[in-house]
Each structure stands twice: as structure tokens, then as C-alpha cells.
């Protein structure tokens, strides 16, 4: 009798997690709509040369995952900027770059492109905050940061 009880308990202990995992996988298979889109980040430094910048991006609404970061438009910021790899697959990132050269952009320029995975139907919204922008002498300069949603 005890053996039968042990066998039944063992069977339950094996079958229940298996079924639970299967149902979890079934639930996962019914995934919401997923699409990928770039988010272009622009910085307007006016008539000052832009030599360094740092900004922070967070998802204010919707569900996103950061899947990649690309450099900017100008040659000075063409290379991929600094960011924490731990930010990938999250909805929050800090991005920064600098250039010690003399050929620097002025005015409004695209400084980076963030590639996003957008989950669900809701259109995401973003919170973008410029931490610092500096000129070639490493002096802070006023600048305006903005983003444009890409297709």
C-alpha cells in the first residue's frame, strides 16, 4: 500500500511540473504582437560644437525592449556610443559618447539610433533626459535633445 502511495506521489510530483511548464509554454505561444522600430535621438547644440553628450531614455508608456544601439549621423559620433550592455532587453538605457577631434557637429544632429522591440498594440512613449552636453573644451553647453520615431 505504501509503495503504491509512493508511486502515486512520485507520479504526481513529476507530472504536475511538466504540465505546469507545458501550460506556461502554451501561454507563451499566444504572444502579443511584436514589432521592431528605430528611435532616432537628436541633439541641438546651437552654434556650439558638440564634443560629448550623455542622455537617459526610459519607456514612459507601452512595453519596449532595447535591442541595439547605433552611432550617429556625423562622423564624430558615427561609432556606437557607450552604454551598459545590461540595458539590452530592458526599457531603460544611459547612452554617452565623446570625440576629442576637431571636426565636430553643430546645430541639430542625430547622435544615436536606438533599436527597439515594441510589444503589444499600445504605442510606446518615451522619457528622454539630457544629462550633459559639452564642447571641445569639456565645458558644459546648453542643448536640446529630442527623438523621432522611425519605421
Amino acid at each position, binding site marked *: 500500500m505504501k509503495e503504491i502511495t509512493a508511486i502515486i506521489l512520485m507520479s504526481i510530483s513529476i507530472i504536475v511540473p511538466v504540465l505546469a511548464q507545458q501550460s506556461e509554454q502554451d501561454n507563451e505561444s499566444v504572444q502579443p504582437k511584436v514589432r521592431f522600430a528605430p528611435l532616432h535621438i537628436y541633439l541641438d547644440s546651437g552654434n556650439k560644437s558638440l564634443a560629448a553628450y550623455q542622455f537617459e531614455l526610459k519607456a514612459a508608456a507601452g512595453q519596449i525592449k532595447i535591442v541595439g544601439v547605433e552611432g550617429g549621423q556625423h562622423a564624430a559620433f558615427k561609432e556606437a556610443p*557607450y552604454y551598459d550592455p545590461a540595458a539590452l532587453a*530592458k526599457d531603460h538605457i544611459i547612452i554617452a559618447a565623446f570625440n*576629442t577631434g576637431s571636426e565636430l557637429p553643430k546645430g541639430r544632429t542625430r547622435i544615436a539610433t536606438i533599436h527597439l522591440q515594441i510589444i503589444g498594440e499600445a504605442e510606446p512613449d518615451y522619457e528622454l533626459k539630457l544629462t550633459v552636453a559639452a564642447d571641445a573644451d569639456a565645458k558644459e553647453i546648453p542643448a536640446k535633445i529630442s527623438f523621432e520615431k522611425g519605421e
Partner: protein
Amino acid sequence: MTNKNRHFDEDLDLKVSPKLSEDLNTLFKQQFSVPPEVDRAIIDKAHQHLIPKHWRHRIFHHISLWRVAAAAAVIIFAFSLNLTQEPGPRTSRTVLVKAQAVDIDENGRVDILDAFKLARHIESAESTKTKLSPVLSTGQALVKQGWDINGDGLVDRNDVDLVALSAVRLDKNKGVL
């Protein structure tokens, strides 16, 4: 009434005749008596033989149950671990860096300007190498200023990268790269 029915007839006389009973008693009568000591010895022997087996069986049974329970626990534990989940991305740097060390401009904040300023110092030092020290190399001269972040004896682009990565870390409170 058939023979078959008669066989199961309840009224059938099942009494045994006294003669037959006496004959049977004579035939199967105990020819000799077994002393009680022998009986006891046989019973003791049987106990010695059977009880250890019984206990062995019980111990084995218990061990089997424990094995089953342990196997079940291991299986449950294995299922509780989500082995399909990929580990999260990690930073490539494992060097411990104190927040104070990477605050190059000492303004109490670690940002990209610290890396930028360090990079400018390195470039500036390289361009004025001879002025810094005729003996020490550029990197070695900057080490003296405490900017050798990774502790490799040189202040170079690797240190700049460490400072920049500190600036963009999501969990800056940890102060660790």
C-alpha cells in the same frame, strides 16, 4: 429431483458414524509427544531467522521511499529552474572600480565628461610627452595622478573606457564595473 440437485441438498445427512470417527482417531493419533523445550527452540530459531529479514525488508523499504522522495525533489527542483531562460547580458568588465576613482573632474558626479577629460589629458600628455617626464612614459606619468583605473600601470584608452562605462551603468549605486 436429479442427482445434481441431490448433491446440494441441504437435508443430506452429514453425520459421521461413531465407528468411523474412532477408526480415524486411531489412525491419526499422535505417536509421540514433542517436548515444550523443542517447541520453544524451534520458535526461537524461527524468530532469529525471520525477524532480521523483516527488519531488512523494512529498512530497504524506507531507503526506497527516501530514494523516491529524493528523486522527486530533484525533478521538481530541475523543473523549477527555468533552464530555457537565457542569462541576462553582462558587462564585459569585471574590474572593481570605486566611484571616487572614476570621478576625474571631482565634481561628485560620474558622467561622460570624466571620460572625455581623461581622454583629453592622455592626448595632451602624448603631445607634450617630453615636458611631462623625460624618464617616465606618458601613461606612467599619468598613473601618478591616480588615473590608472584598471591598475595595469598605464593610463590609456582602457582606463577611459572604464570611466565611460561607469558613467552609463544602470546600477551606478553599486559603484562596480
